[in-house]
């Protein structure tokens, strides 16, 4: 084996995956010699750049290149996973033998193993995840400065800033296994976030908020000015927030908080939580779990999607799965292992961090929009809460019990009357999903999980 040669190849990785594909083949061959009956390997590398600007000046510049290799071996039905950032031949040889030793130390797990060879592959369309644009340092600093400056100019009450940050990164993932699968793809990311601070005249009370955008392609990023202005609008509108009296009211979740609710649903349908009996949606496949206004898809093939990828963490082709259709739970999110535990095939949702065995993750997980505008939804509430932020970890995935810190606006007679904070909202996710009364028309993909505005008919709001 000649790993030294391959190491050199990796430095010119932009030219192709040849270096890593060969490195992977060598490691897999060595694993076999050490007693592995099956194995897979993932290699990731990339470059990142980040600039933070605060009050008009550069606060921090960060630049880095990274690479990492993850190996999973099976010795019969026993398995172990390892990873390293050291690609020297001596280090990799040691890693392979240690991984096989580790695998022999754990017990047999009857359902463990790679996917069947026949399941692998499929088409690998170009999902438009990579942008060759390389931005100069000055350009990126300028983006961050313009974003922050737009926030300061937007309103005189923006008096300070946690800063603005522009990030760009690009990288490659190569996955190969002992069935002969080899796949790779490149992706890039460009993002700007702006976090201004607004101060209330008189009291001096401060409020912070932020706005951001992430895209695979630089050209798709909204203007720095629009992001900064939106950040300022969000910070300023929180000024003068107060608590409210404890009462049961309708709660309208804005896009961001509705997205967090959808993320809770996403966790609840993950195969790992289900087979461990640690999900509130246990044994609910085919049952009504949400209001009939709710349809949820997970689509790994959306062109340009932030969660898109041509194949999953085990090499299975990604696809579009219907998770909830008119309130009925139609599919879990599964990889090979959790699928076998539940007696179901993988849904192509294996998520793989280098160095960990696969788990399950969403691709582009979204709730299908309805027809009402957010204003119409707010207009339907006589008295209630328009929720713009939830904080804390008060969610019990086993029972669905939900209790989180909240802030937003109090709705009176269909209008946003005043900002509110230092309150909690509480309920149970099982009931909350069924109590979704209205679905907005405002679906926007700002991350892997996206939801339009949602109205829940009633929740407990606790304040003073």
């Amino acid at each position, binding site marked *: 084996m000649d790993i030294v040669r391959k190491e050199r190849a990796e*430095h010119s990785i932009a030219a192709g995956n040849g270096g890593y594909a060969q490195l992977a083949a060598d490691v897999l061959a060595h694993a076999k010699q050490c007693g592995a009956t099956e194995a897979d390997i993932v290699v990731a590398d990339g470059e990142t750049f980040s600039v933070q600007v605060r009050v008009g*000046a*550069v*606060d*921090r*510049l*960060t*630049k*880095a*290149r*990274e*690479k990492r290799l993850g190996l999973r071996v099976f010795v019969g039905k*026993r398995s172990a*996973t*390892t*990873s*390293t950032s*050291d690609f020297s031949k001596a280090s990799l040889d040691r*890693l392979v033998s240690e*991984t096989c030793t*580790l695998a022999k*130390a*754990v*017990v047999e797990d009857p359902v463990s193993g790679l996917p069947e060879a026949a399941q692998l592959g499929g088409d690998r369309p170009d999902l438009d995840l990579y942008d060759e644009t390389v931005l100069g*340092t000055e350009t990126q600093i300028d983006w961050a400065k313009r974003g922050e400056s737009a926030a300061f100019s937007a309103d005189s009450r923006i008096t*300070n*800033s*946690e800063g603005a940050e522009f990030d760009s990164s690009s990288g490659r993932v190569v996955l190969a296994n002992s069935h002969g699968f080899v796949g790779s793809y490149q992706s890039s990311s460009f993002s700007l976030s702006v976090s201004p*601070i607004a101060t209330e005249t008189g009291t001096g009370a*401060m*409020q*912070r908020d932020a706005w951001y955008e992430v895209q695979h392609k630089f050209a798709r990023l909204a203007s720095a000015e629009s992001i900064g202005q939106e950040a300022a609008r969000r910070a300023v509108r929180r000024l003068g927030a107060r*608590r409210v009296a*404890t009462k049961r009211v309708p709660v309208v979740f804005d896009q961001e908080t509705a997205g967090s609710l959808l993320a809770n649903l996403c966790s609840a349908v993950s195969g790992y939580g289900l087979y*461990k*009996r*640690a999900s509130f949606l246990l044994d609910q496949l085919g049952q009504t779990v949400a209001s009939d206004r709710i349809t949820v898809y997970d689509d790994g093939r959306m062109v340009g999607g932030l969660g898109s990828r041509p194949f999953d963490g085990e090499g299975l082709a990604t696809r579009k799965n219907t998770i909830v259709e008119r309130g009925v739970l139609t599919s879990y999110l599964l990889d090979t292992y959790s699928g076998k535990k539940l007696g179901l095939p993988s849904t192509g949702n294996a998520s793989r961090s280098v*160095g*960990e*065995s696969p788990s399950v993750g969403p691709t582009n997980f979204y709730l299908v929009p309805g027809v009402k505008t957010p204003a119409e939804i707010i207009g339907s509430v006589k008295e209630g809460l328009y929720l713009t932020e939830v*904080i*804390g*970890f*008060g969610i*019990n995935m*086993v*029972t669905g*019990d939900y*209790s*989180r*810190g909240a802030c937003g606006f109090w709705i009176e007679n269909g209008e946003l009357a005043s900002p509110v*904070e230092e*309150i*909690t909202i*509480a*309920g149970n996710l099982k009931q909350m999903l069924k109590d979704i009364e209205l679905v907005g028309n405002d679906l926007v993909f700002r991350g892997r999980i996206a939801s339009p505005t949602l109205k829940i008919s009633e929740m*407990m709001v*606790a*304040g*003073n």
Partner: protein
Amino acid sequence: MGYTSRRPAISEALRRMPDHVQLATFGITELEAQHALDRLNVRDVEYADLYFESRVSESVSMEEGLVKRAAKSISQGVGVRATAGEKTGFAYSDELTKKDLEIAADTARYIAHSPKGDRAVPVPAQRRPTRDLYPIERAKADVATPERVALLNEIDAEARRYDPRIKNVMASFNTEYKVVAVATSDGILVGDVQPLSRLQITCIAEENGNRQVGSFGGGGRVGFEFYRDQNRHLDYAREAAREAILNLSAVDAPAGAMPVVLAGGWPGILLHEAIGHGLEADFNRKKTSAFSSLIGKRVASDVCTIVDDGTLPFRRGSLNMDDEGTPTGRTTLIEKGILRGYITDKLNARLMGIALTGNGRRESYQSVVLPRMTNTFMLAGESDPHDIIRSVKKGLYAVSFGGGQVDITNGKFVFSASEAYLIEDGKVTKPVKGATLIGNGPEILTKVSMVGHDLKLDNGIGTCGKDGQSVPVGVGLPTIKIDEITVGGTQG
């Protein structure tokens, strides 16, 4: 400029690193280290450092009665930083190739525009940490996997023995063995070996379709023997099982503002969220914290004295030195209710002209240094814990928590109870379902009316997140009474 003259000094110092911190651990040569520092030699840089890190993490985990997963991860690299005024240039690499070092130097150089006169740079001297707060035997840090497997199997059996309603037990044992070396432009070259381990157990209880979860764990900068000592691992298993079984009979939590009694130990997460983050120097230098300009002012009742202490032996949040090579210390944050000080790293201490407290921490060589907490706790008071509970007519007694979060700028914080009870007429009665508590940081401690004599530190499970960086921390608390805080239950 001084860097030329320091060249031989650096390499000499590197040769004299502590025995257990071999330069070779970091995969670099003396020449490369020299070269890196040399490249940081730009005119306006006030401070620069190199942080070498090598880390081996191992884990074994069990579920459904089977120890079926084992993992190991190896990483090494270097973080290169230069600061000029408020500006930081930072680069990191898992390799020390010429190209990587050039990127590092260019990034550092970028932040230093304006020219400045030459100045003397101290010659780095090798220093060992003056103490060893976690003297675990190196060999024991490397316990064979079969022994870990046996430990997890015993935990499974113990939890199921506790009650037949325990239907699944998930346990994981994680260890980390980190070797670091810091070379700085203010003359420090120091290395440390930082072991860390944690045992975490989660039980699912099931009865007539009612499923509940309970969890418990512990650890610290301790070796494997810690968990077998007095069968600590079995205590953890029973605690996790007990919490799950208890929650089977939990009633809905109340909603609204009411008196809350916090038990000692892990509920100290209140301090971490309510005041700890708000007292990190970076937020205060930028005046973005709700605590900005409150030094010397009253922010708590006079029964509250709160410290951050990185020097407690074997504790999860403890360090011989922080990640800038500064020895950790004990910093009084609040003394009898008065705000006394912030916790600092070098950058913020210098810019604010305040004391360096040894709280400059980073998740890894891939992250920048930030002021972070170590072990944060309230000192014991004089009240009897039973009297504290007896003083409440109607309220909540919270014993264990999940996580918490804070908005630094407006001071609002939350933390979520995982084991709590109603207090009715001075007596602890029914267990209630988990609920989030929400309050205002600069205000909440003024409502602490009683502090128990029973200070307890947590068991060593805390991980703090800030700017996307996770670091291990500890908290501690005696039993305390908060006269009023909002409880986010469902029952009005």
